[in-house]
């Protein structure tokens, strides 16, 4: 169109620097916590402690990366904790069964593949119920939360399912080993997070997830295959849970009905502390990573100090969560 040029766009206007800085809320929260922690116990900042914390954060962190996608798409998955327990249990049973015939690495690889397949399958189930069955995600995953844990309890007869010893030894480097001096779980967490960020921000699928969370109807009219994208999203969540479980099993070599209890709340909390809105539409993976680190650091700091009655640990966590969320909001608006 030929309009006077004075009114054309000015693309070089300043980037919203201030709002960028503001969105660093969770990072600032993490820094503040680290400073307090170091003041309380100087061992906090040792490499070995930080590496412990990061390694632990990997579980919840990897699950939370998946949850970031689900939440941005406007959904929720409450089942992640019991899904992890079920995957861990099934994986161990499968590996034990195969392990009888010997053959360490092969058996472990098969077990891992099965775990990933179960995770993806559970996600497929959720996604199908939610997208095609049009049932609220909250309900679907609340239902499967009960189902998965019950099935695990059934499989384990209420006890625990343990990996047999030779396999356990062969598998343990996956948790306890290091790659270039960095513990394997941290490496995997980093890879998952980077990949997650890339998928969310730099692929068509990621864009569609954001569009659907922002306004499903608009996405539908814009030729996005909404059902398919949703199904994939829950599958990604399932695969993330399976990945976390791959790291979990070599750690203790067992699964029991109390494995993964309340992980869903931790994962969702990590996502939201990280600055993704529960109502969907937009969010960020790095925030989730920071959120997971923050949550796990609180626990760690409480264990490292005795300033506060043990009875009140949960209260401290609660206060920190609220404060960080508050700071972040303050910066954001």
């Amino acid at each position, binding site marked *: *169109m030929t*309009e*006077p040029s*004075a*009114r*054309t*766009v*000015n*693309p070089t*206007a*300043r*980037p*919203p620097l201030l709002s960028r800085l503001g969105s660093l809320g969770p990072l600032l929260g993490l820094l503040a916590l680290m400073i307090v922690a170091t003041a309380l116990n100087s061992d906090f900042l040792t490499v070995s402690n930080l590496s412990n914390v990061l390694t632990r954060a990997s579980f919840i962190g990897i699950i939370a990366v998946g949850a970031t996608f689900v939440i941005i798409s406007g959904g929720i998955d409450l089942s992640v904790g019991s899904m992890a327990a079920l995957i861990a249990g099934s994986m161990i049973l499968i590996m034990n069964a195969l392990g009888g015939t010997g053959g360490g690495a092969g058996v472990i690889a098969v077990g891992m593949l099965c775990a990933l397949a179960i995770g993806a399958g559970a996600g497929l189930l959720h996604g199908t119920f939610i997208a095609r069955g049009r049932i609220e995600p909250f309900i679907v995953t609340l239902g499967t939360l009960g189902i998965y844990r019950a099935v695990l309890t059934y499989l384990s007869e209420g006890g625990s399912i343990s990996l047999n010893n030779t396999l356990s030894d062969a598998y343990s480097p996956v948790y306890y080993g290091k790659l270039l001096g960095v513990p394997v779980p941290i490496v995997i967490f980093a890879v998952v997070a980077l990949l997650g960020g*890339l998928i969310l*921000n*730099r*692929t*068509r699928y990621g*864009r*569609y997830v*954001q*569009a659907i969370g*922002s*306004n499903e*109807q*608009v*996405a*539908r*009219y*814009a*030729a*996005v*295959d909404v059902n398919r994208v949703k199904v994939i999203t829950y599958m990604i969540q399932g695969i993330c849970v399976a990945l976390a479980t791959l790291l979990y099993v070599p750690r203790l070599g067992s699964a029991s009905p109390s494995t993964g209890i309340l992980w869903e709340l931790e994962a969702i909390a990590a996502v939201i502390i990280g600055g993704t809105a529960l109502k969907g*539409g*937009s969010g960020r993976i790095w925030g989730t990573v920071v959120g997971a680190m923050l949550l796990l650091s609180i626990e760690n700091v409480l264990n490292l100090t005795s300033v506060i009655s043990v009875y009140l640990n949960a209260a401290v966590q609660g206060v920190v969560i609220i404060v960080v969320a508050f700071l972040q909001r303050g910066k954001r608006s």
Partner: protein
Amino acid sequence: MVTGGGHLTAVPAVAFRSVTKAFGPVEVLHGVTFDIGSGEIHALIGENGAGKSTLMKILGGYQPQSSGEIVLDGQPVTFRSSREAEAQGVVLIHQEFNLADDLSVAQNVFLGRELGGALLDDTGMNRQAQAALARLDVQLDPRMRVRDLSVPQKQLVEIAKALSRNARVLVMDEPTATLTRRETDVLFALIRRLRDDGVTVLYISHKLDEVQALADAVTVLRDGAVVFSGPAAGRTPHDLANLMVGRELEEMFPDKGRPTRTEALHVGGLDVPGWAHDITFTLQAGEVLGFAGLVGAGRTELFEGLLGLRRHTVRQVRVAGRPTRIDSPGRAARAGVVYLSEDRKGKGLLVNALLRPNLTLMTLQQYARPLLDIRAETRALERAVTTYGVRTGRLDVPASALSGGNQQKLALARILEVDPDVIVLDEPTRGVDVGAKREIYLLIQALAQAGKGVIVISSELTELLGLCQRLLVVREGRVAGDLSGDELTEQEVIQYATGLKARAPALEAAPR
């Protein structure tokens, strides 16, 4: 025509004094100063993004001005909220709907000032809401949820809501954008009655013939500044348009091209349960085919059905001569068929997302290499913004920061990015200024010229008549008339649309 003559009264009802408004670093209103006489109908016109809605939101207490002053009946006022403005009798009807979808019509009309004591008087509110709607000659069950209403129905509810608030100064921001002629006429009669009762009416519209018919005075905004403010008498739509754009506007409608003999789209026996029955038509490449009909005739649903957005059955669809199954917008797009929704906010744009993802949502595969090339997307946005004249201060803003008309251009740009062969446009110029409207018309003809098939659904008959080589008139979900050549007159269309004339033995009914 001028009956109000409010101009002559000493104290203006509303006076803007050097009002400016900036969003961040971008100033969109620059020292706006003008008066609105008491008891007059005052039109405010200007191009998309000129700042009309912004100015009215300031008057209505929804946004604060950056500087300057608003004087109401001689008294400077500062409204910190719409509540305060309403308390002083200033009521605004928003351009974008401002309704809670989950509440009923009556509940929306009375939201914030419900009737009744401790328990609400729902019967009373339903009755009064119905009465308010009846003043607009609309009969609508006030218990219906707003979510279930059509766009025009929502607009009418929005108007009824404002009317029921006893305004002294009533601001209407493009109230007729989604209304048909008849509804518009009823509304105009009502506005005149209100004026006669002493209400001052501020009226924003892109339909300049309406302005001419209705307004006592007119103010023209261009790029956030007043370029004219004075009596409307003697100003033709053409004059007004020139004032708006600041130069001589050419003929509104470019020459119609000629359809080719190549078939672009054939639809045979389309049924959309509850909406459309046995729809059969053929669109040629290079043709601009209009769909006329009353609101509620089912045109929107017909095409939503065709695209697979609603349950439907169809005997046959051919795109470019090839039998094609379309069951989703995705398949349609791959086959080269795209559809622009009439519901911009609900189905058209991701209002909270940036302009860039909005533009490229349908064509992401072009930027996937395999990772999305954000820079290429940005270049596409820069290109589209220039091509379609989207006016925005910056590129990295959410779609919600665009003015209504510019949002429409963005939505149009998105579907054209697909480079489709068949383009279905549902109310393409809704809320678009004259200048831009003309650009869109040019664009439509250019698309046809380039061998595309274009379908236009519009409530503006002039638009259809000016654009289309052929018109199908839809009545109660069926094609009632097929007009071309000399038959393309308002009279004909209306006779078919209202059932006074029925369709001659169909030319196209027989499957080939």
